[in-house]
């Protein structure tokens, strides 16, 4: 977020170079996406088919929704490990409450959003008011959520209605409904982050809590808001996952918290806050989804996929961190 204009009349080449320098991470992520797409497409022609492109977009939705929320947290200098638990719990509460009865949908929505927003509120309040490290706070809520889930549910439970199933499987023309929902959330989040005062405050808080506070940002309120947004998006993800699965599953959200943090940080968004964009998050989500898609088309074994995935995460982050000053920790 460099705002000063060093060379008002700088040459175009200089401007491009400066832009590339500021956005190395995002550019790298999209280049990897493009390279993966072209390489796998060169080997297996099915990759370029429209149906496959739609499939990739469809597979982006769950990770995309949760990563949008995670972006708010990470930009403000925090992060949320509890999203996975929120997702698992949401799928169970939602499918369990609806249980095939369409008249129960409103009650189910009220319940899951109540639980989700409450989690976000607890996270935000604990971090902002008790000033406990976000890692510890959200690890604690993650464990509590996981425990609460496993205490009441031993396996898949609940049932959805055909109307909800439309969210997971329905199509508008060639485009899945879920992709449109993701696009809508993405646009809304983009507007909030780039065009509103609140968005600016999120960046300010991530840049430095002291300087944000003395500049008149209500840091407590912004911190709580980012966590509530994150939990809200996790709840939405849970509802979507339930609509795909047709039921609730206590283990479905496991490890998605780490994957969403990776998706946000792959493309140039600093894990320590204040720096990054939603376009980076989109690039990260696209990259992780594209990798699985390409590997599947090339018949790479799942085990090798895991190794490649892990190393690519480290390498992609290294591209933009390695030229930083200071010590890594």
């Amino acid at each position, binding site marked *: 977020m460099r705002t000063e204009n060093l060379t008002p009349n700088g040459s175009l080449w200089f401007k491009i170079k400066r832009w590339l320098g500021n956005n190395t991470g995002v550019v790298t992520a999209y280049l990897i996406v493009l390279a993966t797409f072209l390489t796998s497409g060169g080997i297996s022609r099915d990759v370029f088919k429209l149906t496959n492109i739609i499939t990739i977009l469809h597979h982006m939705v769950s990770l995309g929704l949760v990563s949008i929320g995670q972006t708010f947290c990470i930009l403000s200098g925090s992060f949320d490990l509890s999203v996975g638990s929120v997702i698992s719990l949401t799928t169970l509460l939602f499918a369990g409450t609806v249980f095939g009865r369409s008249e129960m949908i409103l009650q189910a929505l009220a319940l899951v959003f109540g639980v989700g927003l409450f989690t976000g509120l607890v996270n935000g309040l*604990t971090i902002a008011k*008790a*000033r*406990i*490290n976000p*890692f*510890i*706070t959200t*690890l*604690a*809520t*993650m*464990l*509590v959520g*996981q*425990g*609460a*889930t*496993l*205490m009441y549910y031993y396996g898949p439970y609940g049932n959805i209605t055909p109307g909800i199933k439309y969210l997971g499987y329905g199509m508008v023309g060639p485009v899945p409904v879920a992709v449109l929902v993701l696009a809508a959330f993405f646009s809304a989040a983009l507007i909030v982050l780039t065009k509103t005062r609140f968005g600016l405050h999120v960046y300010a808080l991530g840049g430095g809590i002291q300087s944000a506070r003395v500049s008149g940002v209500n840091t407590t309120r912004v911190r709580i808001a980012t966590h509530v947004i994150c939990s809200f998006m996790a709840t939405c993800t849970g509802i979507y996952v339930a609509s795909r699965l047709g039921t609730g599953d206590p283990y479905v959200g496991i490890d998605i918290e*780490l994957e969403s*943090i*990776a998706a946000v*940080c792959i493309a140039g968004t600093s*894990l*320590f806050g204040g720096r990054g964009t939603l376009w980076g998050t989109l690039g990260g989500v696209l990259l992780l989804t594209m990798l699985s898609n390409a590997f599947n088309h090339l018949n790479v*074994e*799942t*085990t*090798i*996929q*895991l*190794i*490649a*995935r*892990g*190393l*690519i*995460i*480290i390498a992609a*982050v*290294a591209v933009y*961190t*390695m030229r*930083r000053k*200071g*010590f*890594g*920790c």
Partner: protein
Amino acid sequence: MAANGNAPKPEADEVRGKVTRTENRALAVVKKVPLPWWALIVLVGATAAVSPYILMPSNLIHLVRQGVPGAILALGETFVILAGGFDLSIASTVSLIAAVASGEMAGKVGNIFPTVALSLSIAAAIGLINGLAVTKLKVPSFLTTLGMMIALQGAALVYTGGMPVGGFPEEFRALGVGRLLGVPYLIWILVIVIVLSQIFLKKTALGRSILSVGGNDLACHLMGIRVNRVRILTFVLSSVFAAVGTLLMVTTFRVWDSSMGKGMHFEAITMVIVGGAALGGGRGSAVTTILGWLVMTMLFTFLNLVGFPEAGRFIVEGVIILLAVAANREALMRVQ
């Protein structure tokens, strides 16, 4: 904490009178003992009240022996946290090392020593890669070790093909059940590891530099400490400790199984933090970590005794972490 223990100034005492002074002394004693110790005392008391038998030596030895691998993992994690980082990759390291140890030993006595050497070398290499990525490529340790965690999960599955491989010879498994002077070998090993770690962290220049790097790396750099080397060392130590913990753990297993190590990274971090070390570095020791481990072990023993549901343990664990950190923060603020 030591700063709180100072007796009040004499003038103040005369004003307040005798009763207050004794109260102050009692309070000073309470404050002088770090909070985790009180937690441990209360837990032991509560456990004894529910069932005195659990505190008989034979039972205690059994309890402690089961927790040895977890304690060694937590000790390794301590080095990384003290230097200001995270190591999430230890859970997958456990899985990979267990797979390799099981596969390479293949039930033969002659393979024990080469396999142990191989396991420790693999672990050291993993730690070195983590350390280099963090210090040279400046990838935040959270992301480095997250990537490594995913990669090693894959590596363990590649090695085993997802199925149990090999097996451990009886002589190796004897290490897990054998005793010296009535105390299992595992506990002796743990005691040695604790003592060595504590001496290393508190009495050697290199060990003390781990703490100071976590406190302020730039200042350390200006003082002539090679910050990057110290950080790399912490990651190597963490992975090697994870390997040692794994080798001790598998003495009680027959074969590798894909769920090994699951969740052990968060468990280890919890123990380190509950004992009183600061996330972000600069504060803590091997002893605080062991304290955290004892508190968590006693807590779960107590919950088991009173018939608390298994899944509810997560809830208690979450609440305990939060309380521990909140209490430590209070303690820190009082010192300042």
